[in-house]
């Protein structure tokens, strides 16, 4: 079991429901293949640094998960076949990356808690 992180960009032309469905599809696909989802992040609609398929914005979504290495090629072919996706990137996380991500999450969580306390 290795830890991976994947970011994909969904076309902005979809409706909110369709967007959710696209994300859901991959969440289910991961779960069906014994993947353990560690973390998810929704970046929302972001401006792209350069146009992709004549679109200047994209809907970013990040999933961090643990699976066996063989599954990755299957996941990537699934990404390739999906026309709703503009881009995707799957990266294997080394131990430094894992600790970095955990730290980042902890800081974000603490900041959130502090905010709620203030309110």
């Amino acid at each position, binding site marked *: 079991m290795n830890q991976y992180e994947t*970011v994909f*960009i969904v076309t902005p032309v979809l409706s909110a429901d369709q967007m959710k469905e696209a994300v859901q599809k991959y969440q289910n696909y991961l779960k069906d293949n014994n993947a353990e989802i560690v973390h998810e992040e929704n970046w929302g609609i972001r401006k*792209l*640094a*350069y146009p*992709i398929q004549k679109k200047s914005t*994209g809907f*970013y979504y*990040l999933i961090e998960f643990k699976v066996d290495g063989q599954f990755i090629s299957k996941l990537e072919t699934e990404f390739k076949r999906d026309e709703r996706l503009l*881009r995707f*990137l799957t*990266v294997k996380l*080394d131990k*430094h*990356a894992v*600790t*970095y991500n955990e730290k*980042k999450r902890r800081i974000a969580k603490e900041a959130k808690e502090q905010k709620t306390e203030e309110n």
Partner: protein
Amino acid sequence: MAQNNSDIKYLTPIAVDTKKKKYCRFKKSGIKYIDYKDANFLLKFVNEQGKILPRRIMGTSTKYQKKVAQAVKRARHLALMPYVADLLK
């Protein structure tokens, strides 16, 4: 007037070629992982055209320069950073 020019005296010796030693910022501050998602941070390692700055200028060690390059390339793929730009900064 040429005489006057040669008579200029300085109170303190003028600094000529006092090179500041370059250092690797990652080694110094103990950064182990360079995040490709943090485009603002990676912006420090590219020039105005979006090209990766060489080690010779940044002073980064080989180990971390590789990681910087990898991170910048990943960020470009995800359209977080441009491949080509003009007046990025």
